[in-house]
């Protein structure tokens, strides 16, 4: 008993963080879905969900309830044990990967010294859930989806890994906390030092999370739903949860590695200190919109809910503003790092996910062979060149005393030239090797 209390006393922060992740992440995933539907509706000249709650704000909860009470179907021919356990593997891997991510300086379960390696390794396990789920369903659509998924993840994991390596060379550490600290010291986010690496990571992370235009494993117009075809109800919801968790994970990795993590833009420059007020101002704007829309809702309860949402956002804005207004040195002022860090981190993650959605609603889907060609013949060679380029830049900077401003742009331009060459070569090959019918 004593040891348990000891344990709780030592690790209460981590435990609270873990509980928050497990409890809140499904909700967050639900609201990302709502955001996606709203973004999609905006781009497609329509309104999106509007019925459940004001502007559809309660839609995720209604969806979750519906999925919970649906009949739980396991096909007769399926391998029941594996069918049962596969979605759990996916979700667990996604959630575990969250554990070493630092959402602001305060919120982190464990600051492992191999942090990023751990995340990459764990999130790669999630693919087992997909492959096993597809295989155990005993359906051709599922099987094809799982096969595609396996091949795709293996290919793009390599490119993503190499992109990460580039940023790690700049940081010189695997710990998420220290990577962000290094970016603070450099005074520049790594996206500006290694833009090509960032680009590769964006493309590879979209492919890794099975998002359009690389959503072949679940291409709804070809394979119905790919590996999830036979799943329904809550098991299906788990796969969905895993997918959106993975989106948050890759967005967090990109934020940590390339976008300066929880750092404010121009964190080191005093002249930009007014940006500290941006979070509160942004939220007040959103709250103002809520109050503006509230009287226009058709039902009284919706008016009240929207007004309450506005009030809550004002509360958050005030909490974010409090450390800035409090006298320096007080306890309230010391909360600035944690609160504002979390805000900036989540804002960047949100913008990254928005980029995913934007791409999804703009592009058609790749075909499988095109996807593989893009991965192996363009992204992987480019990511290797990118790593070499960053290495050269670092040597020039550290041993030959070149400044950042000459070394990094130079190697970036060289890397881009290689990218051009690769693209040209790919184009040429595509012309000669186009697969066309009649060979069967």
């Amino acid at each position, binding site marked *: 008993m004593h040891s348990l209390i000891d344990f709780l006393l030592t690790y209460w922060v981590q435990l609270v963080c873990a509980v928050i992740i497990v409890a809140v992440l499904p909700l967050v995933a639900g609201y990302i879905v709502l955001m996606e539907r709203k973004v*999609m509706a905006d*781009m*497609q*000249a*329509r309104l999106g969900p509007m019925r459940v709650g004001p502007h559809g704000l309660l839609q995720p909860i209604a969806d979750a309830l519906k999925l919970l009470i649906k009949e739980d179907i396991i096909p007769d021919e399926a391998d029941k044990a594996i069918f049962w356990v596969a979605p759990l593997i996916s979700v667990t891997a996604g959630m575990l990967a969250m554990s070493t991510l630092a959402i602001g300086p305060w919120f982190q379960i464990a600051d492992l010294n191999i942090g990023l390696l751990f995340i990459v390794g764990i999130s790669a396990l999630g693919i087992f859930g997909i492959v096993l789920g597809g295989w155990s369903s005993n359906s*051709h*659509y599922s*099987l*094809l989806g799982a096969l*595609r998924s396996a091949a795709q993840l293996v290919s793009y994991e390599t490119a993503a890994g190499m992109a990460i390596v580039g940023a790690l060379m700049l940081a010189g550490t695997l710990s998420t906390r220290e990577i962000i600290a290094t970016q603070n010291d450099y005074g520049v986010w790594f996206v500006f030092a290694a833009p090509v690496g960032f680009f590769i990571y964006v493309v590879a992370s979209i492919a890794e999370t099975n998002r*359009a*235009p690389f*959503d*072949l494993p679940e*291409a*709804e*117009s*070809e*394979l*119905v739903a790919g590996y999830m075809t036979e799943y329904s109800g809550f098991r299906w919801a788990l796969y969905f949860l895993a997918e959106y968790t993975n989106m948050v994970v890759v967005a967090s990795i990109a934020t940590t590695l390339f976008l300066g993590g929880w750092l404010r833009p121009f964190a080191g420059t005093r002249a930009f200190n007014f940006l500290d007020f941006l979070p509160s101002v942004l939220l007040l704007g959103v709250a103002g919109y809520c109050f503006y829309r509230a009287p226009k809702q058709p039902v009284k309860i919706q008016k009240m809910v929207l007004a309450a949402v506005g009030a809550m956002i004002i509360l958050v804005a005030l909490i974010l503003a409090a450390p800035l207004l409090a006298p320096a040195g007080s306890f309230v002022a010391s909360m600035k790092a944690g609160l504002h860090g979390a805000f900036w981190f989540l804002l960047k993650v949100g913008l990254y996910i928005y980029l995913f959605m934007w791409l*999804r*609603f*703009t*592009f*058609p*889907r*790749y*075909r*499988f*062979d*095109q996807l593989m060609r893009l991965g192996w013949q363009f992204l992987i060679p480019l990511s290797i060149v990118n790593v070499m380029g960053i290495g050269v830049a670092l040597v020039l900077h550290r041993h030959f005393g070149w400044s950042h401003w000459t070394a990094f742009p130079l190697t970036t331009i060289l890397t881009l030239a290689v990218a051009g060459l690769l693209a040209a070569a790919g184009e040429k090959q*595509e012309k000669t090797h*186009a*697969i*066309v*019918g*009649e*060979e*069967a």
Partner: protein
Amino acid sequence: MADQRVPFATHADSTVLGADEIVLNMGPQHPSTHGVLRVKLRLDGEKVIGSECVIGYLHRGVEKIAEHRTYTQFAPYVDRMDYVAAVSNGLGYCEAVEKLLGAEAPLRARVIRTILTELQRIASHLFWLGTHALDIGALTPLFYCLREREEILKIFEKYCGARLTTHAFRIGGLQYEAYDEFEKDVERFCKPFDKRVDEYESLLTGNRIWVGRTKGIGILTAKEAIDYAASGPVIRASGVKWDIRKAMPYAAYDLYKFEIPTGKNGDTFDRYIVRMEEMRQSRLICLQAIENIPAGPIMGKVGKVLKPPPGEVYHAIEAPKGELGYYIVSDGTTQPYRVRIRPPSLINLEAFDKMIRGHLVADVVAIIGTLDIVLGEVDR
């Protein structure tokens, strides 16, 4: 009982399933077979090495129904064949019966028919573009296309009260006079429409992924297209300049100037370009037609009870999907002895197996989409 999974044996070379091969059953319930088409695919990995289309899930016996209805009664039924282009179906049937009767609709009626049919062609092509892009994974064009199509459906609704299965025409002419704002409405739709087509093209034509997904997919050479008796955009994309509106003018098409867009390679990309260009040409026809709709009666002299003399007639029109033909045999009574319909979707679908062989599963939906089939018309 596992050995009961017998491969389909209609193709001579597909009686035995190799060790690496699976049979994938696509449809009849599938998101992108455009209705209840069932395709059995023999796959080696993801590569399609054989296919068979199973049709008939939407068979309603339209041709048989015709034998038990009078000529007038049967007219609304044809709207239910290609329900995406009901106006064109009606035009073909009405003109075929008029030919059988030896009557002709007055010029005013023919011009209004032309306008409505061309609007219907635009609507059909818009629907095709949206769903085709959706099949290939572009979600957004669908909603833009439906937005534009809605404008056309509103014009139909104002004209005859119905939006989808319109039954807009009558044998011998029109039942309804064009409403007061008709020209204005058509002009309001057509004037900015070329900009809209440019907008869709800006989303798709230059897109690397779109080009990669459509170029070189499902090639049909000019000779093959003719051998398969393909028609409509499918044959024109293969470079054959065949359009019944020009070859055997009907309605009022001989009055207007328009081009027949053709492709070169006969692949999915060319069919896409041809249809985009056809929408622009249809817009031009509509604009020319509303400039001067001649005055006069809208109904010809055909009598209340239609009793065509014994004989037979074949009349074809250029429907949005291709040659839509009606072969009607009359025995001198009020009911047709036989009505045979040549649906363009069915004939075009026959080229499917030829087009898909050697391509991947993902191309199956692209090719089904590019053929622009409507199962109501395939099965009748």
